[in-house]
């Protein structure tokens, strides 16, 4: 992990095993499958539900500042706490939680490399005991909107030479063959992708054991498709969680200076009346725009 631009953003399963009960550390599990935590989790870890606790449940939006302060405070997290996030599916929603915590200015939040899968595969201890943390008062900063892209910014970026977009969905979603992944209900009216975007499925950033690929491999992966650090990068997927995983990779493992997550993603763009849509493959970002 030492070669990454910000190696301190990752901790190993072994490190978590050794430090999980340290007083200034809070470990939190955030899963795609919101019931997984109840099967068993890292001893001492708290569990967050992305569907109810990491979003605005009334309107479509990220968690509000007040709700984040309440969540973190109730979970015994102070502004100087080291928060370790992990989850299933190679840390999809752990990255989603980290993205939101970074938007609200939490200084020390990291990801357990390999997530829940690696912890399980290594045969480490799990518990069903739910820790009751002592509440604290958490004071979030004003939201850093530079880490997020809204529809209007994406529309402007589509024709701008200093921007590139990376669509991290599966190949079949990108080409428009399917509207949403098999078995998932949220869908859209049109299939395809934002014109000019490169397709680099999020999972290509991971090894088989769920850990992130080496810096060298990640650079080759993204640079090879035109996603380079001299550009402003916008990542998107279907609802913004897979793209927060790629956002994490580009921003912290590769150190790209300007990366944002378009969490409106395809469920916004693909339902938008009059939005331009491209189908089929595009091997490199802006290939069509440049010609």
């Amino acid at each position: 992990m030492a070669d990454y631009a910000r190696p301190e953003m990752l901790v190993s399963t072994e490190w978590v095993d050794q430090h999980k009960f340290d007083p200034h550390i809070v470990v939190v599990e955030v899963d795609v499958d919101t019931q997984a935590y109840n099967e068993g989790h890292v001893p001492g870890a708290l569990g967050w539900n992305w569907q109810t606790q990491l979003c605005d449940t009334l309107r479509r939006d990220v968690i509000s500042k007040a709700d984040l302060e309440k969540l973190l405070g109730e979970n015994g997290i102070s502004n100087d706490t080291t928060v370790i996030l992990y989850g299933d599916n190679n840390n999809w929603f752990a990255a989603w939680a980290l993205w939101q915590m970074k938007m609200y200015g939490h200084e020390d939040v990291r990801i357990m490399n390999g997530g829940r899968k690696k912890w399980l595969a290594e045969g480490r201890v799990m518990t069903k005991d739910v820790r009751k943390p002592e509440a604290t008062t958490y004071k979030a900063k004003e939201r850093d909107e530079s880490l997020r892209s809204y529809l209007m910014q994406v529309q402007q970026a589509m024709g701008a030479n200093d921007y590139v977009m990376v669509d991290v969905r599966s190949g079949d979603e990108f080409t428009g063959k399917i509207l949403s992944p098999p078995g998932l209900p949220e869908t859209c009216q049109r299939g395809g992708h934002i014109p000019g975007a490169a397709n680099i499925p999020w999972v290509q950033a991971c090894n088989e054991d769920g850990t992130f690929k080496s810096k060298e491999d990640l650079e080759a992966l993204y640079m090879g498709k035109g996603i380079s650090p001299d550009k402003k990068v916008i990542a998107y997927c279907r609802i913004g969680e897979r793209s927060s995983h790629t956002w994490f990779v580009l921003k912290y493992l590769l150190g790209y200076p300007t990366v944002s997550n378009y969490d409106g993603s395809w469920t916004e763009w693909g339902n938008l009346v009059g939005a331009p849509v491209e189908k089929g493959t595009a091997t490199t970002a802006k290939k069509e725009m440049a010609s």
Partner: protein
Amino acid sequence: MNTEEFKEEFRELNGTKIRVTSYKIGNEFYCHIYNADPGATIARASGNTSEEAVQKALEKAMARIK
């Protein structure tokens, strides 16, 4: 409780490639089924044996992938 018998394999269900993960925590066996690409959870189940958990999860997944 230690985690034991962690297994992961790819299968095909109704033409969809799925990833089947199973493991034992304590005395209970669990199975999670994900679509192989992108990897979202489709079904989960538990049972007294690995086979029972997998079978129950596969039945749920079958109903969801038509």
